[in-house]
């Protein structure tokens, strides 16, 4: 048996043409349900059909109207909620960051970066000095002017041994930020970094007011001002009518209330009952329930996010090549995609880069025949490995992670291989289990580029090289491609790197998932940046009600 690409439409196949067809149908008065029915008749799963229609109808919707209160529920919250950007942990923190603050640069939907509080920037020829011109006329919520001092203060908090910043590694090469004049700053690096502006677009690099120490009620420049913040209870934000961005009419909403509903069933119920308008991290099991409700819809953004089962290659049994191959042949990737992810996602071939990376993705490295589901081959390799069993430590770090492992366990039992699943709680998982137990699981968000993703997860000396995979050629390719200016040569190198990763690393990546959330039908305007839930959490200043 081999893995066939499903016949129906997938996200990746959804080209401009299909979108146009769906749009035309919606324009001519077809209901959401009808269009979904057509898509499902041609083989799309309900989740896929729902998100296709959502994206098409979003594109059709008129500009949002001003006004209205909106409630946003994330899946986690607790006493550790914070408004201190360098300590942001959960996506609820990221969301609040986007509501309350601005970055120097922000992501576009194609993962390039555009201006935000910085209007333009340039590097010296060796990329060891970056100069940023700052936007003029921006005011903080307390009325004070935004200047270079604020940038230097905010950025220096990530630097130094004592800094508890979670994003410290990303700017480890930056030695200093210097004020040139009131609206110009310079970053001095001790090693070249061509991607600094991309890094500055990520969640932790928010701009605070110079000297901020009180993070119960900090001031920011963002589209909403803070009215109330109670960690683990809620935060309330009101529209900043003095917002600097004149490029559009937003922010539209009068106010946003952000809080957590940990129970996934309760969260979906709240959305359908109309108590909340945005429900983050939709459990794929609930897609049907959301699509069948009249006032709610699935909001999915295809991405390179993925779940992985890792056999660490420096320990038993991951150091056994036959064991790794046997396990890879046991994975039913099509079934994971269909049952666990309800068809919303793409085939994964044990390497971190998925089709959502666009040009960075190498189709040849994603050949479904690399390690097809094949019990005979699996049996052969596992017998040859000389092992009779193994144990995976599993926490639910990705929706359906346990089920993915259980499916693998079931297949293993068919070839008389004793694969034990040790379920452990999520809390404490990253410190006590991940990268410590010989076989463990993890979940990765998409990164802005294939280069960053591969470096982060698979480079021999990367701190998060979770499979402990060491391959000289792979490292060489990464370093060469970073300095390569010719796009086609660069793509060639990336392709070879991805192929190496797919065939040799100890990671098992069955699928690439979409970010899947659910929202009220009458809420529109969401950008679709695939680096986090709800379009990269870029929504606050763009979203509003249609009616």
């Amino acid at each position, binding site marked *: 048996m081999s893995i066939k690409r499903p016949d129906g439409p997938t996200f990746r196949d959804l080209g401009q043409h299909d979108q146009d067809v769906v749009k035309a149908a919606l324009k001519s008065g077809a209901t959401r349900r009808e269009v979904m029915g057509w898509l499902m008749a041609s083989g799309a799963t309900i989740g896929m059909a729902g998100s296709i229609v959502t994206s098409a109808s979003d594109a059709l919707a008129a500009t949002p109207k001003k006004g209205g209160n909106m409630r946003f529920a994330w899946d986690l919250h607790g006493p550790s909620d914070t408004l201190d950007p360098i300590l942001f942990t959960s996506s609820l923190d990221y969301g609040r960051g986007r509501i309350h603050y601005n970055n120097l640069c922000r992501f576009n939907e194609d993962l390039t970066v555009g201006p935000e509080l910085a209007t333009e920037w340039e590097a010296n020829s060796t990329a060891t000095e970056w100069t940023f011109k700052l936007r003029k006329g921006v005011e903080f919520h307390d009325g004070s002017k935004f200047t270079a001092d604020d940038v230097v203060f905010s950025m220096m908090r990530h630097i130094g041994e004592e800094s508890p910043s979670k994003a410290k590694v990303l700017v480890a090469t930056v030695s200093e930020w210097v004020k040139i004049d009131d609206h110009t700053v310079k970053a001095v690096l001790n090693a070249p970094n061509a991607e600094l502006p991309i890094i500055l677009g990520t969640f932790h690099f928010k701009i605070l007011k110079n000297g901020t120490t009180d993070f119960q009620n900090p001031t920011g420049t963002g589209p909403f001002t803070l009215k109330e913040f109670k960690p683990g209870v809620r935060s309330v934000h009101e529209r900043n009518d003095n917002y600097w961005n004149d490029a559009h009419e937003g922010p539209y909403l009068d106010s946003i209330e952000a809080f957590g509903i940990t129970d996934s069933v309760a969260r*979906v119920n709240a959305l359908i009952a109309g108590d909340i308008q945005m429900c983050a991290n939709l459990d794929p099991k*609930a897609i049907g329930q959301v699509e069948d409700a009249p006032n709610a819809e699935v909001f999915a953004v295809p991405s390179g996010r993925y779940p992985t089962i890792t056999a660490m290659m420096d320990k038993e049994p991951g150091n056994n090549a036959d064991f790794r191959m046997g396990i890879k042949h046991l994975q039913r990737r099509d079934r994971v995609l269909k049952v666990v992810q309800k068809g919303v996602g793409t085939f994964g071939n044990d390497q971190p880069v998925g089709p959502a990376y666009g040009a960075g993705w190498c189709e040849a490295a994603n050949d479904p025949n690399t390690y097809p589901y094949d019990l005979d081959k699996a049996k052969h390799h596992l017998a040859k490995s000389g092992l009779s069993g193994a144990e995976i430590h599993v926490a639910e770090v990705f929706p359906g992670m346990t089920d993915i492992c*259980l499916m693998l*366990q079931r297949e293993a039992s068919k070839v008389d291989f004793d694969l034990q699943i040790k379920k452990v709680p999520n809390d404490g998982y990253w410190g006590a289990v991940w990268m410590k137990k010989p076989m463990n699981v993890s979940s990765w968000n998409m990164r802005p580029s294939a280069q960053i993703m591969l470096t982060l997860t698979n480079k021999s000396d990367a701190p998060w090289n979770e499979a402990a995979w060491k391959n000289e050629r792979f490292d060489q390719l990464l370093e060469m491609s970073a300095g390569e200016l010719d796009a086609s040569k660069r793509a060639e190198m990336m392709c070879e790197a991805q192929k190496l990763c797919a065939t040799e690393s100890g990671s098992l990546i069955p699928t690439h998932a979409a970010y899947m959330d659910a929202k009220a039908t009458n809420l529109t305007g969401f950008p679709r940046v695939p680096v986090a839930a709800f379009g990269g959490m870029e929504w606050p200043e763009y979203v509003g009600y249609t009616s």
Partner: protein
Amino acid sequence: MTDTSATTPTEEPGKTIYDELPDAPPKKRLRLSWVGKISAFVVVFWVFVALFGTWLTPYSERDYIEEDRTGEFFDDPTFMVPNAEISSYLGTDYTGRDVFSRIIWGARTTIGISFAATLLAYFVGITLGIAAAVAGRWIDAVLSRIVDAILTFPNIMLGLIVIAAFSGQVFFNPISDAIILLVGLAGLVYAASVFRIARALGQDIMVQDYVEAARARGEGLWWIITREVLPNAAMPLATDFGLRLVFVILFISSLSFLGLGVPPPIADWGSMVRENLSGLGNGFFPREGTINAGALASVAPALAIASLTIAINLIVDDISAQSGGSLAKKMV
């Protein structure tokens, strides 16, 4: 839930006053009402299922329905409607396993764990409780304070902390580790309540005439415990055992609800309700032309829990209504 429910026996009207005499011997023969008989049948049925049912199911608790029976790959194997052709009598669950088979396998897990935990609670609770009653002052005071301190903790909180503390340890294999931890946890939590009952009963019996008579005859402590105290405490303790079993079943279901219970893929009724809850939601908005199998996957195990716990409760009611006697009043 707090464990304060009807541990005091209710009394039927029409009883003679003689049943209330402190020295009336416990009735030896039990005559159950028809409600009690039906309940007893339900309990016996579940015990039978728990013991032998797993040999008779079409699937195992781990089987995914399609390839294991038909080799066919269903388009969406989750929440399928009941289909006798593939021996799926209650449909499939959220990940495509047979609900009917899993309920039967779950009977073994749920009843087994709860029974083991209750036995443990009784063993520890009665041993220490009677010891406290018989040995008196010093041991009694220390044991009672410790038990009181444990009882001040909410059960679920205690469970959460203990499970968080021990879940990193590996002894045998993941599943038996988790089950041993659950049995130990529930057993110790409820041993505290059993201790109080056993101690009260023991103290009460120690001052009864027949015990004092035995003492006067010069019988040893051990003789008094085994010949006088235990036989007289047996009936109230037996009824309490039933109720305690119900609390343990609900306690373990609650832990499963919080994701701390029996680990997958082992079926237990509490986790089955929990993992299929999203199917219940679908039930209220069924897509056109579909029967709602999702609701079944969640409601069926809930009914299994309820049928067993209600039946046990009814039997306990029946027994305590008939076996009266002043001792039972000390049970709270």
